[in-house]
């Protein structure tokens, strides 16, 4: 392993990791507020990819308009799903909501297959980020440089919203105990809908950049990213925004390095991610920087 190769792989790892991080943040937010693992997150991500495809390749929207269109539409889809599939089960046991989430996931996958066919479509390079630039001996796609920036911006906005605004205060209250929050006069339906909107909007931002790196749209494209980002969120400590970012980077780097240094193990790349998940759950279930939650009695 030469230094050159190591640097290239480091760059590859950071590029993948920052994408994981971006999507994991949306995942972790919904969990943080609702204590619900939204298994449909990866499929919302997939739907956002189709929105982008139709917005740009079919309707030829200008790029800035396309981005807004996709984010707004996806946020709307997230809120709709919350309204239809999760809100009716608000007072039902947690298991029912989980089953409902899995149902939504299957519904979106099958719906997309039915409407758009199972065949992959090319993701358009409407931001001009697919081209490559070289930094010394290291080649990188332009999008790899943009993702960390977008990540920082999104994270700052998110931290600002949750820590400094009234909505954020309400979110934190709901995450502590939504029964009490409701009694205290917080409109929890509004807060939870907003959470889903923001989480789904982040998935849309994620997919726009993801598509620049992996330019292919298909109905099952959200399954693996969804699982990987769930793992990233758990590694960092699910529910914790900074943890999700950390987890994303760790997972991305480890995956790339595993493939780079241990060629014969390439086939076990996904398996490795799951082993990592199991290890974290066994050794430190709260994740690397997650807080310990006290069980409510």
């Amino acid at each position, binding site marked *: 392993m030469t230094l050159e190769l190591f640097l290239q792989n480091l760059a590859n790892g950071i590029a993948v990791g920052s994408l994981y991080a971006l999507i994991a943040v949306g995942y972790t937010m919904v969990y943080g507020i609702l204590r619900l693992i939204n298994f449909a997150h990866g499929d919302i991500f997939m739907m956002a990819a189709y929105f982008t495809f139709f917005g740009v390749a079919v309707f030829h929207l200008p790029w800035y308009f396309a981005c807004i269109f996709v984010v707004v539409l996806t946020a709307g889809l997230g809120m709709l799903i919350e309204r239809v599939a999760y809100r009716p089960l608000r007072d039902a046991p947690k298991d029912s909501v989980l089953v409902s989430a899995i149902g939504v996931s299957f519904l979106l996958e099958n719906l997309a297959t*039915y409407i758009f066919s199972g065949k992959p479509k090319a993701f358009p390079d409407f931001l001009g980020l697919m081209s490559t630039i070289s930094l010394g001996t290291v080649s990188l796609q332009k999008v790899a440089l943009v993702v960390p920036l977008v990540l920082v911006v999104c994270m700052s906005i998110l931290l600002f919203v949750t820590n400094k605004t009234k909505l954020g205060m309400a979110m934190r209250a709901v995450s502590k105990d939504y029964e009490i929050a409701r009694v205290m006069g917080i409109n929890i339906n509004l807060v939870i809908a907003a959470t889903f909107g923001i989480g789904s909007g982040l998935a849309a931002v994620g997919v726009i950049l993801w598509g620049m790196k992996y330019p292919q749209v298909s109905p099952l494209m959200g399954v693996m990213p969804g699982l990987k980002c769930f793992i990233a969120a758990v590694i960092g400590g699910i529910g914790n925004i900074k943890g999700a970012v950390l987890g994303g980077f760790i997972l991305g780097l480890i995956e790339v390095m595993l493939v780079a240094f241990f060629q014969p193990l390439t086939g076990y790349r996904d398996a490795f991610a799951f082993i990592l998940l199991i290890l974290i759950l066994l050794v430190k279930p709260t994740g690397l920087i997650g807080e310990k939650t006290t069980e409510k009695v």
Partner: protein
Amino acid sequence: MKKIAALLLALVMTAAAFSGCKKVETASGSGETGGDTIKIGVFEPLTGANAAGGEAEVEGIKIANKLYPEVLGKKVEIVVADNKSDKAQATTAVARLIEKDKVSAIIGSWGSSFSMAAGDLVKKNKVPAVGASCTNPLVTKGNDYYFRVCYLDPFQGTVMANYAFKSGAKKAAIIQEVSNDYAVGLATYFKEAFVKLTGDPNSVVTTVNYNTNDQEFGAQLSTVKAANPDVIFAPGNFTESALVMKQARQLGITVPFLGGDTWDIDEFTSVGGTDVEGATISTFFDDSAPVTEEGKKFVEAYKKEYPDKNMAAVSALGYDAYLVIIKAIEAANSSDSTAIRDALAKTKDVEGATGKLTFNADGDPDKDSAIIKVVKNGKFTYKDTVTVAK
């Protein structure tokens, strides 16, 4: 509110059920079943990573069914089952065709892995299967009930090694889809032939792996770039392969890519864009120069049915698989599965779209030439026909 949730769940389940099995009416549109129809099952990936390939094969089969809707005075009904580009689903789909739909014979599947997964079931239930584009030797080996109309991986791997050597390559790198039997087979035979041709045991400078459904190949490609090959042989599914080539170009790898028949499909060039320009493959059929009368007939019917599509070679193979089964039913004068199998084994000089078909003892066709195509201006164009002694 609970009603809505229940409704949603019901929707999901019906959607899942519908995606499992689809019945295709015969050309004349009669829905009769029972004594008047002979059912031929088709299991192909219609969703998932290989969907475009499966769809292309089904197109060919449907056209064959349109041109030859009857045999022994009975209508032929095609029952299509989706194997979802998944080995486990492939066995489920075949089991369903055999047990529920009671088909007389089966066509499929795109992807040697899926065909091999279904092999045992076919053998156990004594229902003959004819593969269209499954090229791995193990599909038919030791299985009296599996036949195929395409040539095999050892042949295809050798063809591409010859092509690479003739175009002046001394060092080759291999990027293989390690979880795909087809890709691994092709890579193995390529390596064997390439080493023999160059006389240099180290002429394959590196072999890297990736998994089906992977999207990130930076690490593998960095290794390949460091090994500095003259040519890269990268057999695999078209979805991943197009991304492999895109990412290779982004990493500054400029050497030519060679692959196999799986890339010969519109989605490969549409996803790959300019980055797959120059990619070279071996394939089964070229619609610009059909070699047989049957081929001309097929191309004409295809162009009429799908005027906007570039034909994939596997469509012609799907057509041939159907034809071979119809001929066998005629020869057996029966729709009994075992009788059809015995007739299939005796297939000799049946004219198909891709050439004359004669099955050997393994149930493989006696083919010795392959067509080389290159991506030019975003389309696969004919380059050469190569004949290699087996």
